[in-house]
């Protein structure tokens, strides 16, 4: 039995809304600062900015970012 016409429109709008919500979730996630280090054997660990290791990493990263200015667009 073919779907009712209004269902097609509703499904499409729902699909767009889901895509937009996923996009916004990814953007929120990607904007958070993070630090991750990988060691021998494939192990890796993340460090939050409020930890001792994290502060050391973020301060060192800030110093490097200051060395390399943005490219002129």
């Amino acid at each position: 039995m073919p779907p009712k016409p209004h269902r097609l429109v509703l499904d499409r709008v729902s699909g767009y809304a889901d895509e937009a919500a996923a996009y916004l979730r990814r953007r929120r996630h990607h904007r958070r600062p993070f630090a991750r280090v990988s060691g021998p054997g494939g192990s890796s660990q993340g460090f939050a900015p409020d930890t001792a290791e994290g502060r050391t990493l973020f301060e060192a990263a800030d110093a490097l970012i200051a060395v390399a200015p943005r490219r002129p667009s």
Partner: protein
Amino acid sequence: MSDRSREAADRAVAYLMEISPLMRGCAIFDPDGGVVAATGDHDSWREPGRRFISAVDSTPVAGGNATHGHVATGQGEVFVVCEEDFHAVAVFDRFCLASLVFFDLRAAIRDIRGESGAVSAGAPGAGA
């Protein structure tokens, strides 16, 4: 390091800048912590680069020998890889593709090491 090797290192850095539009700059460090090649002034990369490498290596998971590290802040992203005792440090704008960055940095180090003739015949990947 010979002049030919340094030229190869400079070419590798220039190539990285060319293929990475989001890259702001990078530097290659030899096992002694000396700057082999870098974008811009080598001296300006020396201490911040060493500091970052030391910070990454001193984490518990690295145990003194991190393979790679990635720090993202609101102002940019910083990457470091260690390949055959050389380190490559790079600064990028936000939202770059991390896996590709690591690949490119490792490839640059291997190119430099291959040019310098420092890769031994028995090392993995030799001749590849």
